[in-house]
């Protein structure tokens, strides 16, 4: 019977989320009843769950059918941990149990991320597309339960939240309480029309981003540039600079385009999933960049990593100076994000560089305040702060981000250490 199931799964074509025009055609066709019902103030819970399930299954069919088993096992594992901790937390609240629950929740992800590094680049059997994003959701729940802000959870809502189809593969990362509120309430007609309007706009803009711009940068520009750069070789060359910008724009338009699809489909389902990007290349400084780039991830790290590190450092009075505290927390926070991307030197270096940039950014702001205070006492005006200084900030931030993206792309690893000419 198991054999039959596997064969059946292998025989179904594999459809990656938002991968091709056909996917949109089918998905939107299946969404019509949901949209019509919601327009008339009803949520078709069972139908929506079935459609979601169907589209989740086809993500893991064909050659990657084993991922479906990994997903099922993973969801069972997370359900046990979250509900066990929930039961425990009603009566007690101790740090070791909390830490143990968080550890167990991220354990599968750790396995998946470490396996390629120690096993010759082979992927773990526990892995499946989207495991990181599911882990973010469950870990956030455990932490909010510990904080006491998340008190009641329902199994059905939990499963819908964890397996919310539009965002299952790559986010945006939602929060349980926000999701539950949207899910239990149907938006009124005026609000739903606004959502539909935005959904249409995001779908169209997403097409432009992902299938026009990302294709241009990622395929037409990037592929020949990489070949040229590798042919020249050495430490650095002009085509590598081209690779840097082409990759940076490809990364943005591809991921932002995908995020727009995810948000649009969520909106059609009446779920106001958070936005992931907000014109990141306009950021005048690195901190602002992280408020505009992969927002749901950086806010997740802010709330569940950075704040916790600061809290622990302050509570245990590790450093006297609060600037040192925040600097250490920034670096740890970004390093963890680097490790999360994968256990390769360039991801970790990417995290470290961004952590350092946050520290430098803070130091510069303090320095500027101090200088301005001295200048005021000396009867002089403050340092210039106008559109030119802002433009300078944008240029510097953009260049820094692009350099770190080049690192992030892994291309330097290939150029320096694996360039077979």
């Amino acid at each position, binding site marked *: 019977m198991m054999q039959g199931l596997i064969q059946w799964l292998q025989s179904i074509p594999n459809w990656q989320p938002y991968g091709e025009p056909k996917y949109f055609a089918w998905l939107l066709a299946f969404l019509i009843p949901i949209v019509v019902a919601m327009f008339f103030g009803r949520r078709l819970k069972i139908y929506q769950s079935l459609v979601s399930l169907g589209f989740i299954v086809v993500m893991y069919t064909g050659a990657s059918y084993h991922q479906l088993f990994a997903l099922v096992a993973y969801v069972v594992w997370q359900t046990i941990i979250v509900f066990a901790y929930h039961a425990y937390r009603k009566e007690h609240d101790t740090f070791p149990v909390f830490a143990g629950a968080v550890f167990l929740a991220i354990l599968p992800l750790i396995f998946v991320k470490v396996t390629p590094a120690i096993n010759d680049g082979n992927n773990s059997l526990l892995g499946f597309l989207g495991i990181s994003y599911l882990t973010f959701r469950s870990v956030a729940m455990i932490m909010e339960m510990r904080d006491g802000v998340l008190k009641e959870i329902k199994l059905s809502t939990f499963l819908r939240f964890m397996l919310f189809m539009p965002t299952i593969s790559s986010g945006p990362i939602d929060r349980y309480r926000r999701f539950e509120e949207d899910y239990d309430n149907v938006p009124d007609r005026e609000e739903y*029309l606004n959502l539909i*309007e935005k959904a*249409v706009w995001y779908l169209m803009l997403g097409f432009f981003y992902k299938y026009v711009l990302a294709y241009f940068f990622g395929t037409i520009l990037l592929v020949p540039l990489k070949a040229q750069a590798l042919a020249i070789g050495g430490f650095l060359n002009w085509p590598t600079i081209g690779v840097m910008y082409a990759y940076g724009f490809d990364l943005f338009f591809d991921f932002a385009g995908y995020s727009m699809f995810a948000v649009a489909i969520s909106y059609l389902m009446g779920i106001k999933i958070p936005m992931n990007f907000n014109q990141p290349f306009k950021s005048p400084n690195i901190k602002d960049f992280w408020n505009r780039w992969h927002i749901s991830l950086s806010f997740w790290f802010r709330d569940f990593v950075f704040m916790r590190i600061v809290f622990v450092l302050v509570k245990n009075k590790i450093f006297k100076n609060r600037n040192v505290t925040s600097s250490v927390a920034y670096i740890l926070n970004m390093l963890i994000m680097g490790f999360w991307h994968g256990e390769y030197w360039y991801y970790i270096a990417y995290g470290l560089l961004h952590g350092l940039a946050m520290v430098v950014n803070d130091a510069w702001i303090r320095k500027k305040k101090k200088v301005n205070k001295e200048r005021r006492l000396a009867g002089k005006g403050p340092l210039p702060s106008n559109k030119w200084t802002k433009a300078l900030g944008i240029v510097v931030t953009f260049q820094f981000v692009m350099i770190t993206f080049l690192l992030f792309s892994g291309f330097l690893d290939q150029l320096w250490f694996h360039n077979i000419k």
Partner: protein
Amino acid sequence: MLKRLALIFGPVIAALALVLVVLFIGPLDKHKHNLPLEEQAAVSLSPTVFRQSYLKNMALSDEDHRFVPFFGSSEWNRMDAFHPAVLARAYHRNYQPFLLGQKGAEALTQYFGMQQIMKNMHHKQAVFFVSPQWFTKADQQSAAFQFYFSKDQALAFLQNQTGTYADRYAAKRLLATYPNVPYADLIQKVADGNKLSATDLNYIRFNTTVHRNEDAFFSRINVGDNLKKRVIPKVKELPQPYNAERLDAKAVQLGQAQTRNNRFGILDNFFTNRIGSSFPSLRNAQAHFNYTQSAEYSDFQLDLTQLAKTHTNVIFVIPPVNSKWAKYTGLNENMYQASVRKIKYQLTSQGFKNIVDLSRRGNEPYFMEDTIHLGWRGWLAFDQGVAPFLEHKQPAPMYHLNNHFISHDWNNFDPINNDVNTFK
């Protein structure tokens, strides 16, 4: 409320409708002939022209200008002054070659390409340049095949096939060489010997319409500039009027001037750039090469089946290898001649009698441009064999196909130790 809905969905619906209309109707000039574009496409050798059908069909269906399909592979890219495209142009022949072939293209690619131009091959002529190098033991063509394959080829094949033995074999080979091929489920049906349903055929027709219209929109965008850069300038180098002796002298003169840095008669920049530092390691490197047993023989039979189906009168050209170079690399001449015997037997025994066999002329000076490709006098020899065939009316051929040429028996038949004439 309705107004709001109309404002939201109106533009999307209008855009969708517009796209559909455009895709269904296609460009308004899609049935028009455009001679400059046809001439450009004929020598462009771009992957798009080779993969898609629009430009091929436009040229081959032109009643005022006769384009003849030249099937082959990388040799078409050796565009010196004596290349067939240059000669046809310089001496105002009543035909122009439409070059169909690129590096790595082999019989299977040609088979699916022929599907696209089937209706323009009926009772017409063609040239087929068949290289023994295609007939390698291991199937090495997967990547190149996939690169040159297009949805349009799959659709044309699905429409043309009638479930014959060759059709089923072609479907199987297609699935084996390109497992994720578009329309794999329908091709599987053909491979299994199942008939396509009416729904399948409607689906195929629908997709063909849309696909051909897209092709008509986009194929003409980047046809390359081979005509302007590599053909027309060389036309001016040739003596006028046509004179075989003066042409030969010119070929010797140009060949001499361009082969100074090596003792193999190989074009200088080919020797420097393509052989270069790997030269020492190539000594005897080809001693184990074997073209006598290969799945390619069955693929080649598919081409012959298709040519017979369209009653195309086709002339085959079999090239030599550069003898001096073959000696250096250890390529076995006996083996090479045995593969030529096998190919020729497959042709002649089925009524394909027009063969220009150049395979023993690799030792003539300035015959080969590099290691395996014709150049200068080689092209002239090609022309002397092919041009009369194309210029003058030929008797209709009588083909009698033998399906046994699609078999392991034939693929594995050893022509070195066996007389090919014994194969039935």
